[in-house]
């Protein structure tokens, strides 16, 4: 399915609006849409909604042998997927330009900035290290996937707990969460991406573009920063002409936005931690907006069991009992038996059968074999390789595969 293209008047309308410093959803130029971070019941699972854009991140881990070049470091792997749910234009298992850009940007933002202490993920040097895998699923595409993905990934990483391990000699014991409390990853800093969209050859700039705005933009500038005002990556894309001052100005805006978002993530993390500690209810079920008209929830409901047994009995008694005596199979040749007095097997029939035409050449060999079995079977069986050796008396040119004597 194709993406609905933007009409020319929509395009001019949007550009005009940008010029007049107005946005479709009534935001100011530098405003972000509402950010909502919710954590799942699992450690390391979180959804982030940025306006209508929605992503789901899940962190998982497993023990793997390390890379030869870095025997004492754990491995962090990012995999962002554009689910076809997010937009009809996304097709599963296809490497689109957008997918490559997002994945690489996520890697650069979170791996190259060394925000995770990979050395602490080493279990046995050169033998076993933790591989941390971050899966990010885009569920709904309404622009600015990069920012949403980076917020989701870093929140999920900060939320994640890996199982504790103990090493005794060469044996590695992995403790279940019941045995020992799982361990959080050590995260040095939290890089967050902030996207800027440029219009009219860089004259106008918007923070957090929505999908419609992204469609008319000249290009994007993504700056990843942490709250210590350190830039973790910069990436421009889309063939725009930028001036140095614009980049510097964007980096200043980014630093403000990043500190706001970091506070939000920390607040969400603390909130989740508190609820878990107090033994309250957490997870996605709790975060469902109950007041919405489209949402409904029911408490645990017992299922009426009376009558179930009677119903089952009824069907059982209705059904006829299977007959004890069944027809016996016929042994056609050593190692080959047949059930049923069928004539339906077209392979066994003579050549003049009309239906044979559709059978194709490849069946021929089998057919000959079958025919032989059905007619007077001539068995020459002293070969060890095969139990049944059948020669077709009518077809002297038997295929070479079968031993003749």
């Amino acid at each position, binding site marked *: *399915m194709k993406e609905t293209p933007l009409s020319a008047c929509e395009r001019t309308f949007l550009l005009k609006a940008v010029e007049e410093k107005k946005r479709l959803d009534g935001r100011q130029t530098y405003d972000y849409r509402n950010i909502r971070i919710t954590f799942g019941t699992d450690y390391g699972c979180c959804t982030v909604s940025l306006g*209508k854009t929605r992503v789901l991140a899940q962190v998982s881990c497993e023990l793997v042998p390390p890379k030869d070049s870095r025997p004492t470091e754990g491995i962090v792997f990012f995999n962002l997927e554009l689910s076809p749910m997010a937009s*009809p234009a996304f097709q599963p298992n296809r490497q689109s330009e957008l997918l490559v850009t997002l994945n690489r940007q996520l890697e650069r933002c979170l791996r190259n900035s060394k925000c995770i202490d990979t050395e602490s993920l080493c279990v046995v040097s050169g033998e076993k290290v933790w591989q941390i895998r971050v899966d990010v699923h885009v569920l*709904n595409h309404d622009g600015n996937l990069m920012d949403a993905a980076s917020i989701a990934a870093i929140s999920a990483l900060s939320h994640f707990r890996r199982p504790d391990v103990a090493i005794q000699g060469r044996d590695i014991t992995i403790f279940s969460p019941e045995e020992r409390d799982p361990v959080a990853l050590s995260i040095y800093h939290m890089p967050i991406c902030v996207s800027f969209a440029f219009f009219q050859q860089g004259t106008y700039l918007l923070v957090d573009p929505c999908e419609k705005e992204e469609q008319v933009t000249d290009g994007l500038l993504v700056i990843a920063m942490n709250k210590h005002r350190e830039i973790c990556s910069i990436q421009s894309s889309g063939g725009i002409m930028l001036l140095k001052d614009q980049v510097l100005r964007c980096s200043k805006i980014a630093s403000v936005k990043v500190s706001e978002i970091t506070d939000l993530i920390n607040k969400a993390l603390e909130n989740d931690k508190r609820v878990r500690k107090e033994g309250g209810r957490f997870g*996605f079920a709790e975060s*469902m907006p109950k007041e919405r008209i489209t*949402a409904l929830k029911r408490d645990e409901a017992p*299922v009426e069991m009376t009558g179930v047994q009677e119903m089952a009995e009824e069907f*059982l008694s209705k059904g006829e009992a299977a007959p004890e005596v069944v027809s016996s199979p016929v042994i056609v040749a050593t190692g080959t038996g047949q059930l049923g007095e069928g004539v339906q097997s077209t392979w066994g029939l003579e050549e003049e059968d009309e239906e044979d035409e559709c059978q194709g050449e490849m069946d021929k060999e089998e057919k000959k074999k079958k025919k032989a079995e059905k007619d007077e079977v001539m068995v020459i069986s002293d070969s060890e390789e095969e139990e049944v050796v059948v020669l077709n008396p009518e077809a002297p040119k038997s295929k070479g595969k079968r031993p003749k004597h």
Partner: protein
Amino acid sequence: MDQIETGSGSVLREYGSEQNLLSKPDGSATFLQGDTSVLAGVYGPAEVKVNKEIYDRATLEVVVQPKVGMSSVRERAREQCVRETCEAVLLSTLHPRSSLTLILQVVHDDGSLLSCCLNAACMALMDAGLPMGRLFCGVTCAIDSDSQIITDPTAQQERESRALMTFAIDSKERNVLMSSTKGSFSVKELQQCIALSQKASEKIFQFYRDSVKRRYSKIL
């Protein structure tokens, strides 16, 4: 031995749903059963690829996205079950030569995943306003080592169970649309589970009705 008791087993966990929560798809819904949660999105009827076109009805594609890693053979089997169930109830002849796409994203798996997928799929199809001859719902039953039947089992209960069955029940005659099982069980147990699923389906169909009522309460 096959005696079932009205123990703690025969309950449906807390369940809920939210419809129309994604802006892009034509219909979307999430369904929660306890901690198990599935998000479904539907696109269509829309233009179909030529090689997938069917001349007298709509082509339905179902994609099940696992939470971690790539989709595997297990997801394919689930896709087949969900697709054929939906095909049976959708009046796809009303949209010939078009495509319907149903995407299911596993958000959290705490048992009874296939039934949750089915329920989310049905809610999303309803939200998309696609014509259906009847509704369907999924119910999972587990038989534990004491031969007790547990409805809507958690992941822990699934692991400890001897057999696991998931049925899709239709809303018209409460008949079995789909059946998928694991483990071994007697005929009687199967019949009991079917009967129990039919009972449990009443609750879910009532839930469907309530949520539609609530949704359109402001209009009616």
